[in-house]
């Protein structure tokens, strides 16, 4: 056990020595790997924020039943009671014409649009919230159909279509991210493999001597695998630092554009799990690249 620890320490030192000896080529490999991880990290950021938005919208999912002008307050209340009894409905809120006007005025630019209007053009409505476990497309459709058949309901509105479209966009971004990540990852793998191969050739004499004094095959190979892992992790840290810097530089500048694309102005940075995942991806690419280099070479 003690000997194994000393051997492990020696192997790590050998890997660090190898990195120092080929600082320029290793640096290029780390930089290339970092660029790929920044791209993959950007997709992760977008997807993570789209997920958050979907969760937020999902919890606010409701169907709006716009009511006919002629309905009295009592009839509206009666209608609301009937709607509340429908399966899957969690709560029903009556929104009067006045309340609808107030809410519209609070929205950005809403007050300006209302200037000059002599009477309130907005209808009264019922906001129907679904129970959390009944927020699927089928449930929304069923409640909408039931509402459409009720007297006094003029028109229906729901955020369901928007949610479905947004989810499709998220799937597209995720697919693009994976596709681009896979292609760039493969290219980077080749770069890391070639870097390790160059290091391997530069240290052939050392490997021969180590072999002659009784170093095992594992002992000869492990430092290169450690080099791959260290390069990958260094690239991961660099990529995270770059992403963090870019994120905090870009978010205030993009403002409205982000609201249009993501649906909100205050996106969040990668979670700890995503950040560790990015580091692990870097380390994984590094070690696989190193293993590929070793597989293609005949060591002493």
């Amino acid at each position, binding site marked *: 056990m003690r000997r194994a620890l000393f051997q492990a320490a020696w192997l790590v030192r050998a890997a660090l020595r190898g990195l120092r000896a080929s600082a320029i080529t290793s640096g290029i490999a780390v930089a290339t790997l970092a660029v790929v991880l920044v791209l993959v990290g950007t997709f992760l950021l977008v997807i993570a924020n789209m997920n958050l938005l979907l969760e937020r919208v999902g919890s606010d999912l409701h169907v709006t039943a716009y009511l006919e002008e002629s309905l009295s307050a009592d009839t509206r209340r009666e209608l609301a009671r009937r709607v509340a009894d429908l399966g899957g409905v969690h709560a029903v809120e009556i929104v009067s014409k006045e309340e609808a006007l107030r809410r519209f005025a609070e929205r950005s630019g809403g007050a300006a649009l209302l200037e000059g209007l002599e009477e309130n053009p907005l209808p009264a409505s019922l906001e129907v919230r679904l129970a959390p476990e009944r927020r699927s497309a089928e449930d929304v459709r069923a409640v909408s159909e039931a509402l459409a058949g009720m007297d006094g309901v003029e028109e229906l509105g729901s955020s369901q279509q928007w949610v479905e479209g947004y989810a499709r966009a998220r799937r597209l971004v995720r697919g693009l991210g994976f596709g681009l990540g896979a292609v760039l990852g493969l290219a980077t793998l080749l770069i890391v493999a070639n870097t390790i191969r160059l290091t391997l050739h530069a240290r052939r004499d050392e490997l021969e001597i*180590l072999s*002659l004094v009784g170093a095992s095959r594992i002992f000869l190979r492990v430092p290169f695998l450690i080099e791959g892992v260290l390069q990958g992790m260094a690239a991961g840290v660099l990529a995270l630092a770059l992403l963090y810097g870019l994120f905090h530089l870009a978010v205030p500048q993009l403002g409205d554009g982000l609201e249009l694309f993501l649906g909100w102005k205050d996106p969040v940075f990668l979670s700890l799990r995503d950040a560790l995942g990015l580091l692990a991806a870097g380390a994984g690419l590094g070690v696989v690249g190193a293993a590929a280099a070793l597989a293609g070479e005949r060591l002493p």
Partner: protein
Amino acid sequence: MNRLGADAAPARGDALIRLFHVSKSYQAGTYALHDVSLEVGKGEMVFLTGPSGAGKTTLLELLFAAERPSEGQILVLGRNVAVLREHAIPALRRRVGVVFQDFKLLPRRTVEENVALALQVLGTPTREVRSRTFAMLKRVGLQHRRHHHPPSLSGGEQQRIALARALVNDPEILLADEPTGNLDPELTLEITDMIAAQAARGTTVLVATHDLGLVRRYRKRTLRLESGRLEEDVPAGAWRA
């Protein structure tokens, strides 16, 4: 002197090295070694002589499994090198020290680091590596040079580093390929004295050399190779001074 036939191989009960009709061929029909049989006992020092191309280096390479025989069997420390699996070679090499004519030192590592390599691959604790390396360098008279790099040292000093590396883990067999080939007469004697001292400590030693003056001076058992064949096996003390 004892002239040998192809089948002659002196029987030694405590032999650490045994060759049985060993041949090595790199090209069909051309032999670097041809039908060589011999035994070398524990603690014995043997010179391997012959002109360039006689097969001295090939014979040594077969003994530490850098090459495999084309025919015959080789027993080194009880292991059959002819059929030894790749993963078992390192274990054999840890028991066999090798000194090369071209030293095979790492130029960017210090003298101390070069010698320590042989212990580090075994997972020897750092403190023990330091003390044993220092003791070994002291034995070859280079303790004051331990922080230098090999290219800044003389040929004799580099050969002493190579010898120190070969001996630092106390091998049972020492193989030296022309260890004095590039050295002046004074350094030649210095290095050979160190090798002979190691044999006196119980290590089996094989030294390949074409320097017959050296062979006569030390009067050790001598094997003469020519064109890959073992032509003579001269017992210790049979050379005239």
